[in-house]
């Protein structure tokens, strides 16, 4: 699962700590998601997307889907 949280954070001028506080998680969780070490639950993914005001698929991309498209 890839994500563009870092990009959206930069666009909204938010630090990891700011975003974590708004979403209601630890800053380390945001860092882990950005680094691809942790895949968030649907609930958390929706909360992040809703905070940035974009559809969830704009922030999170499923890698296996991309690979399938590449093969096709």
């Amino acid at each position, binding site marked *: 699962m890839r994500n563009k949280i870092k990009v959206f954070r930069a666009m909204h001028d938010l*630090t*990891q*700590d700011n975003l974590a506080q708004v979403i*209601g*998680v*630890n800053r*380390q*969780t945001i*860092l*882990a998601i950005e*680094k691809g*070490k*942790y895949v*968030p*639950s649907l*609930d*958390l993914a929706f909360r992040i997307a809703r905070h940035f005001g974009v559809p969830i698929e704009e922030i999170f991309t499923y890698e296996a889907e991309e690979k399938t498209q590449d093969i096709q």
Partner: protein
Amino acid sequence: MKKNIFYIIVGCIAIALVALFWYSDLLMMPPFMIAVTFVVAVLAIYLIRRKVIDLKEDERDVKITEQAVLRTMQVFWVVFFAFSIGAVMHLLRSPSFPPGIPMGPPPGPSELLSPRMIGFVQLGLLCLMIFLYVGFRIYYAGIYGDWETDEE
């Protein structure tokens, strides 16, 4: 209360419990009292935890805990039951398998594994479970990005 103080208190309670279990026969404590002590300790930890102000647990922490507990229990139960069943078999010297092989000496007190020693080893395994849990927790914390360096 800060979470580091909470962890120190939990460590002290755990050490006190282990010591209490270890010396329970010297203190002539009935098994019922040991069980009550354990429940009181768990309750105390729960109540103290509610006083911690900087301990925020999110879904990643829950996931780490889940994985650590699952692996700890998987390893612990296998080792614990293997030892316990093996110890009972050793004490009773039965059944003989495969049939036909002469059985050992008749049932009685064993020199190698006395019931008392079995209890101590089981207690030791219980104590080891704590370290096993801490080890698995550190391992899964690393997997789920706890040690990632901060760029900000």
